[in-house]
């Protein structure tokens, strides 16, 4: 199996912080995996993700994508090869849905027909009727619809790697469950490698083929959801699992 992403002793600190945001992280991720990175705020999960498309550069260590050290590749080119979706979505409000999806293909100078066909195909993939939605503006969409467009836009240039930074963080519970199911379906059909950051343990264990648990810049455990639930590696992971169990009890008490 191909290695898609390799973090080798990656460390990154920010000025004025008492510990490194990411501290000596080494991970090897295979092509086609759906990796969720779970941690509370300040755990370094987003910093790790943003180093993968060079929004940040590590202080030390290497990040290898498909055998290539991204330190040696122009930042802009690295980013165009990687899909990127974030919680705030960040659709450009002065562009239609179709134009938003077309941003990266346009940067890559695809021809017009190919871009149109791709936008059409992607809207169908994310469950929005192309005829109805292509010419709408972001302000005319609900939060859930905006994030679907955000996903379509990230997928537009058919990247091998997708980085998702709490994409469903601001979406209500019911829509979030739907979007999670659809993201899982999309991943299953595409053979792409997903890196998905979340602070929601249910989301992390539900979506991930493997889960990275992070705390204070370090990786506590990197394993399948089953193994994490059965054999938590340290006290932090244990406390995460326990918090879930507590909630279950709370629910049982209500019903």
């Amino acid at each position: 199996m191909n290695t898609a992403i390799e973090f080798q002793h990656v460390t990154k600190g920010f000025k004025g912080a008492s510990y490194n945001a990411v501290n000596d992280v080494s991970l090897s991720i295979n092509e086609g995996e759906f990796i969720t990175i779970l941690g509370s705020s300040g755990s370094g999960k987003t910093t790790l993700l943003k180093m993968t498309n060079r929004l940040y550069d590590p202080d030390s260590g290497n990040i290898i994508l498909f055998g290539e050290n991204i330190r040696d590749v122009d930042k802009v080119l690295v980013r165009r090869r990687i899909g990127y979706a974030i919680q705030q979505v960040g659709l450009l409000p002065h562009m239609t849905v179709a134009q938003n999806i077309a941003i990266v293909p346009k940067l890559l100078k695809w021809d017009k027909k190919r871009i149109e066909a791709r936008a059409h195909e992607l809207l169908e993939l994310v469950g929005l009727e192309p005829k109805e939605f292509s010419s709408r503006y972001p302000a005319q969409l609900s939060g859930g619809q905006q994030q679907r467009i955000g996903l379509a836009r990230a997928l537009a240039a058919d990247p091998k790697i997708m980085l998702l930074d709490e994409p469903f963080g601001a979406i209500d519970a019911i829509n979030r469950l739907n979007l999670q199911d659809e993201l899982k379906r999309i991943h299953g059909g595409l053979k792409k490698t997903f890196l998905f950051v979340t602070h929601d343990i249910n989301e992390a264990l539900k979506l991930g083929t493997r889960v990275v648990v992070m705390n204070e810049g370090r990786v506590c455990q990197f394993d399948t959801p089953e193994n994490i639930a059965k054999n938590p590696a340290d006290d932090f992971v244990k406390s995460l699992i326990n918090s879930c169990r507590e909630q279950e009890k709370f629910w049982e008490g209500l019903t």
Partner: protein
Amino acid sequence: MELLRFAQRNYNLLLRALVEHIQLVLIALVLSVLLAGLLTLVAMYFRGAGSLLTYIFSIVYSIPSIALFALMIPVLGLGRTTAIIVLVLYNQFILLRNFITGLGGVDSGIVEAATGMGMTKSQLIFRVRLPLSLKPIFVGIRLALVSTIAIAIIAAFIGAGGIGLLITIGLETGNNNRIIWGVILSAGLGIIVNGVLVFIEKKIK
């Protein structure tokens, strides 16, 4: 009534003063916007340049206009060119502040997404920041325009002509009609221009 009779008799004088004034203001405004646009780009590409430039021009802006005109005479001499240069310098503070805060104030999520998708710095400025800050840019231009209409009156002291000349001659010769018409024309011009631009501004998203 006397005012109206004065206007009838001196129709050409008033019209010439108005046209001259509008010319002076427009030339100064176009040059101001060009210079401010250029300086804004510098500010976008070089970290820290924006606050430095705004600081420098805030000092220029705090000099009373009549003093700045006087200061420039030994350097540039009398005349319209000097007046235009001073007006352009004055406008930089108003324009730069609006341009820089406008371009810098674009929603951080949008900027992050655009950067993460692989836009270059220039693409980010021209395809994202600029189209999303049309309103603050337009507000800056409106404020600069209205203030230029007023400050250009003072420019008559160094020989720039326009409505200011009407007023200065009125003052020197004790002709109240000239002074009052000068005030009416300049205030009227300012109010009308501002009103029209505010109306257009509301149409910009």
